[in-house]
């Protein structure tokens, strides 16, 4: 891109997960050898539970908190962290023209109400009438709003005043890739100056564990790092909130904002998943990034055959130092790619990479400064994405 003033900078990050909240807690946690995972509460499924969060700090009104379930609370919280990080919280003029793209799934079911209905249905004389009556009487009227995919964005507008524009992308892992990609391209092309991009997940919910386990994608039993799940593949669902503030260099410089990193390029594909297709897709995208000399923050899920194909790609590029963050904070699906861009941002900002966490030897130690990081996002079912993050 010839016009450097339209370079896209990452000027704020807001992250919360099982490792804690914020950059320091995450950097510490990523350097720890012990994963924080719960294999008991949702046995046989392994999940990465959210750290203790005081939601009052970012969602001051209890009334607002009550309108949400955990998924939207986690996201609204992380969005607030990102706005604080970028130094734009409370700047109502700027927030009034700030664009927003959220990668979202949907909100929590009322598990007790569902269970009561399922229990009663086989015994009901008129099952259709029974279902109608129970739905009308058992569902809290505002629960729908806590479930609606675009209402995470809606709540962020209400709580934090971000109202320039609001879009919500669905579609599992690629929703996160495309949310950042579209925000990046709009800023580059002068269609936007500053954007809040992110998503959240509540991994501690049986309705979501169920969706992925229909296809056998959930990690069950003992916990193993991502590269070692070959014989019992799967991802450990995670509670995660991850938001970025993306800004044109021009806009950032005018308000004296310090960049954390530059978001240089994002590429996405959706290969038909024949054997070898993921690896071929990674090859093609790697080439389009210019085969950069960089470290890799991998969003490998631990599902097969995608993880093996990604691993095979790294074997053929053995000079790359790879870190699979799924081993540390699990897989949040929609916000995962965005979370990993935040981790990549920290790596290039601090100029170093955290220690390997992988006895299987995929992850190698490195010495020397880190100026460039590529993020991978290979979806458990469909979609592949890469992002290039660079030191400013």
């Amino acid at each position, binding site marked *: 891109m010839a016009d450097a003033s339209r370079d896209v900078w990452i000027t704020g990050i807001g992250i919360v997960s099982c490792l804690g909240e914020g950059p320091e807690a995450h950097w510490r946690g990523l350097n720890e050898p012990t994963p924080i995972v719960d294999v008991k509460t949702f046995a046989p499924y392994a999940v990465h539970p959210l750290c203790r969060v005081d939601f009052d700090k970012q969602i001051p009104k209890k009334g607002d908190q009550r*309108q949400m379930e955990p998924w939207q609370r986690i996201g609204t919280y992380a969005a607030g962290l990102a706005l604080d990080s970028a130094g734009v919280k409370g700047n109502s003029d700027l927030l009034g023209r700030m664009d927003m793209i959220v990668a979202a799934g*949907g909100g929590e079911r009322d*598990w007790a109400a*569902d*269970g009561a*209905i*399922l*229990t009663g*249905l*086989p015994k009901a004389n*008129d099952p*259709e*009438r029974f*279902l*109608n009556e129970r*739905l*009308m009487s058992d*569902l809290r*009227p*505002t629960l*729908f*709003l806590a479930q*609606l*995919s*675009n209402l995470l*964005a*809606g709540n962020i*507008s*209400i709580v934090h*005043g971000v*109202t*320039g*524009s*609001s*879009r*919500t*992308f*669905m*579609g599992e892992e690629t*929703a996160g*890739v*495309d949310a950042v990609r*579209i925000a990046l*391209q*709009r800023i580059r092309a002068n*269609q936007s100056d500053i954007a809040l991009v992110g998503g959240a997940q509540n991994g501690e919910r*049986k*309705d979501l564990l*169920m*969706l*992925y*386990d*229909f*296809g*056998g994608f959930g990690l069950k039993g003992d916990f193993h790092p991502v590269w070692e799940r070959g014989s019992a593949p799967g991802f450990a669902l995670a509670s995660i909130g991850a938001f970025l503030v993306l800004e044109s260099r021009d806009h950032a410089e005018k308000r004296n904002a310090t960049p954390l990193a530059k978001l240089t390029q994002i590429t*996405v594909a*959706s290969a038909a998943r024949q054997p070898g297709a993921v690896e071929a897709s990674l090859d093609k995208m790697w080439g389009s990034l210019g085969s950069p000399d960089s470290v890799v923050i991998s969003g490998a899920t631990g599902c097969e055959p995608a993880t093996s194909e990604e691993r095979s790609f790294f074997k053929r590029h053995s000079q790359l130092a790879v870190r699979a963050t799924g081993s540390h904070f699990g897989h949040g699906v929609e916000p995962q790619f965005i979370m990993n861009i935040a981790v990549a941002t920290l790596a290039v900002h601090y100029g170093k990479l955290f220690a390997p966490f992988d006895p299987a030897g995929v992850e190698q130690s490195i010495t020397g400064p880190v100026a460039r990081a590529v993020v991978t996002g290979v979806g458990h*079912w*469909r979609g592949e*994405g890469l992002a290039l993050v660079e030191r400013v």
Partner: protein
Amino acid sequence: MAELLDTAGRPVVVVTGMGLVTSLGAGKTDNWDKLTAGKSGIRAITRFSTENFKTRVAGTVDFVPVEPLSAPALAERMAEMAIEEALSESAIGRRGVFPGPLFLAVAPIEIEWPQRQELAQASGSNDAIGYDDLLRSAGTGQFRRFHERFLFGSVAYNLADKFGTQGSPISLSTACASGASSIQLGLEAIRRGEAEATLCVATDGSINPESLVRFSLLSALSTQNDPPESASKPFSKNRDGFVMAEGAGALVLESYAHARARGAKILGVIEGCGELADSFHRTRSSPDGKPIIGCIRSAIADAGLEPEDIDYINAHGTGTPENDKMECLGVTSVFGEHAKRLAISSNKSMIGHTLSAAGAVEAIFSLLTLDRQRIPPTINYAVPDPTIALDVVPNVARDAAVRHAISNSFGFGGQNVSLVMGREPRA
């Protein structure tokens, strides 16, 4: 010869193909004939029992056979039909290859009560059923098809594969504005040179007991069930809520340069788009109307036009007491004296609120309005609301000189989008 760039120096974006399915029927011809004849697609719901429900009518699409029926399956099939019609008209690319990305507005996807019941039965539990039982059933591997069908991206993946769109498809939601957002994403992608053509699709087939209850519990739906055709009464004094409906719309957007080079017929122009989010409330708009006013103004400015250039507004016009009042406030604020001269009508009076599909379905009706120079009516207008002093084209369609039209979509969660459309590229 009209310029290939608009007044802001951006590629002009035209429409070369359109496809439609609503409760009025399949295809543009059937829909347009009925719409301009003032016919309604709203009927008593027969898909499931509505006993004890306060709302018993909807614009269901019952003529599209889908087995087993689920919201994503119906949405996908209607989208296929709309896309086939649009691609056939556009004659772009070749069979199985569309030279651009897919933007799909779709309702959030989740498993439904028939699937939950299947899972409960399979668990073999005789006592109280809970999610542990459902998880046990899931773990048997016998329900793989539920994973594929009920992923959020499932409809988009299938459509992208079938029609050969480029890159990764985007599934999007801005509630009731979703269809308009899908067109906006296509417009922006072509303007920044990322694509020469985009397939913008919006679809919604989600009328089932729980979705009806959800809107009903928010007091958003009309309960004037008898007769069904008169339940949707936008701008009327006795309006009492919207009527849920199903449908799909598909548009092929293309740069004018690309369309002209291959000799494609230009069906209309997407001249501008405005969007603005509202931070007032999760379901109600800001009482001062500023987000709606700002949205409409920015759409007109984006099109390089003045308010006086707009002859017709295809209203969001849901028929809720709140929306129609706020939309009127927005329109009179933006257009001033000109608000009395332009026409504003609501397709939702006849096809109901097609939710995620609405913005695209109504953009297509707006383009047909421009092409045919004929404005569809707002039907069921028997008791005027004296506080809404606008020409709502009551009950009967009319021929008119329409140079430019705006289509409004204002969604739950405060997501507002307005599209400006014209007949042909301007020099």
